[in-house]
């Protein structure tokens, strides 16, 4: 493939013009679930982090991290508090730079495009790489419909009813809210709000979905729904999920990366990380000896 991809993130290129990809590698655990019938297979993009360093002011919080996330797979980032899991995720869609005094160096490749390249528009990066936050944060002044449509409206694109329905179905929320789309989004329960935020992120049709502890503020039932959703969403997006819950990582992730003090300790298939890790620190962490 000659190199047309660097254009993919520039303003003037619409998503339709982006060249199609190789068909994705079949997921290691293709688990077709009930309700997943609507999810169509779609080739997502890979994310490669190369020699990433990130700072908050003088504090060097990510040190020379190199890590890659395979397309249409779910990768979990685990590690104790302050190990830099969230920072890595926030660097991938360039949200890190929104914090005053924060900066980052290194390369982050979406397929083969460096999202930190000076010719790349940060807005385009964030359209391609969606994000779900720890606490559900629907827009309080907007209805359920408008919340889902917000991503498109805020980037000055037209919104059709089908797009909103597709996104809500994708987030497993459609059946619960289809009769009250005009009601405020903050009237939903915490778990529903989080799925609304997932729908909002999906409506922009990203290639990658970053999830920063998406279930940590939710009850066990809602957590389970989010985890099932991750399984379904892999058919369409590449998922990076930060979690401090190791059972969750074990349940949802194909790959798991263990971070400690801003450095990558170990990355590998989830089963291996949890049963037979190479590094003693990983073993200590996953068996609950520290963290």
């Amino acid at each position, binding site marked *: 493939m000659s190199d047309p991809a660097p254009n993919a993130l520039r303003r003037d290129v619409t998503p339709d013009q982006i060249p199609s990809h190789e068909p994705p590698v079949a997921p290691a655990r293709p688990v077709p679930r009930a309700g997943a019938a609507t999810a169509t297979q779609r080739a997502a993009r890979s994310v490669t982090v190369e020699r990433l360093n990130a700072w908050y002011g003088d504090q060097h919080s990510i040190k020379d991290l190199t890590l890659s996330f395979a397309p249409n797979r779910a990768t979990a980032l685990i590690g104790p508090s302050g190990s830099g899991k969230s920072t890595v995720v926030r660097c991938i869609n360039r949200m890190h730079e*929104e914090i005053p005094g924060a900066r980052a160096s290194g390369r982050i490749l979406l397929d083969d495009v460096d999202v930190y390249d000076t010719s790349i528009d940060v*807005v385009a990066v964030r359209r391609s790489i969606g994000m779900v936050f720890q606490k559900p944060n629907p827009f*309080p002044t*907007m209805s359920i419909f408008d919340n889902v449509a917000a991503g498109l409206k805020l*980037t000055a694109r037209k919104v059709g009813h089908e797009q909103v329905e597709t996104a809500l179905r994708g987030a497993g929320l459609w059946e619960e809210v289809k009769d009250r789309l005009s009601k405020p989004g903050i009237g939903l329960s915490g778990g529903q709000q989080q799925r609304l935020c997932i729908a909002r992120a999906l409506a*922009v049709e990203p290639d990658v979905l970053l999830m920063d502890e998406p279930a940590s503020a939710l009850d066990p039932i809602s957590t389970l729904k989010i985890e099932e959703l991750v399984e379904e969403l892999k058919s369409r997006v590449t998922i990076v999920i930060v979690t401090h819950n190791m059972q969750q990582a074990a349940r949802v992730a194909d790959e798991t990366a263990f971070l400690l003090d801003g450095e990558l300790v170990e990355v590998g298939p989830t089963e291996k990380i949890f049963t037979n890790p190479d590094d003693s620190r990983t073993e200590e962490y996953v068996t609950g000896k520290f963290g």
Partner: protein
Amino acid sequence: MSSIAFEPVSARRRRVDKLARGSVAVLTAAALVPLVLILYYLVKQGIGAISLSFFTTDPTGSFLGDPGGIKSAIVGTVLMVGLAAVVAVPVGVGVAIWLVEFGRGSKLAHAVRYFIDVMTGVPSIVFGLFVYITLVLAGVGGSSFAGWKGSVALGLLMLPIVTRSAEVVLLLVPNALREAAYALGAPRWRTVFRVVLPTALPGIVTGVLLAIARAAGETAPLLFTAAVVNATAFNYNDRMNSLPALIFQNVGQAQDRLVTIAWGAALTLVAMILMLTLIARMIQRRSRLS
């Protein structure tokens, strides 16, 4: 099984508690006394002047004969405060948006915030003097005293109030909402107008209404900018009457009928501001930020 033996509250603690509660209640009552007295006297003295013609006729200026109504003062207050609000509110909210969303933490923002604080503390008569010297004495616009000059003085007075209240409300908007919008690829300005401002709107409206209420009750900035006249004026380049100025002029007269007019005008002004405040409260209740 075994009952836990809690120690009884000591007599001393009970006494101190009673004393504290008692003194707070007394202070609250003391604070209410002047408020109730003001409203009582206002209604008692002013209600006699209120009639339909009181609102529909201009003051005559006659000392011995029929003193007329207060129409020109109501119209003048509404026009001047209205113009001041139309100019000061967008500017004030704009400054607040810049302070919170764009200039946050910069040196210029600190300087701007400092000057706004200073402006809040400037006595209202100083704004009047400033306009008197720069616009009235200089005869800007071909007039000496004029309604729009009164509006300028009131607008200057409102600006820091609007800015400060809007800034506080904008700071209350959770950062998570801004991040949510940025993460969707929204540019900063669109985030401000589509997410932050709608979320903060009820609070901003409350602050604006309070600033308007404050300006509507100001006498000093109007006395030597818009002057005091009898006739109703709709042209901003003419001298305009206003409720506070009319009260100021009439209440000192050695003529009971004029004093009654002043009380009636004061009651009218309080009623107008009360209505504004009630509107502000209703909007605040609908606020999703509280």
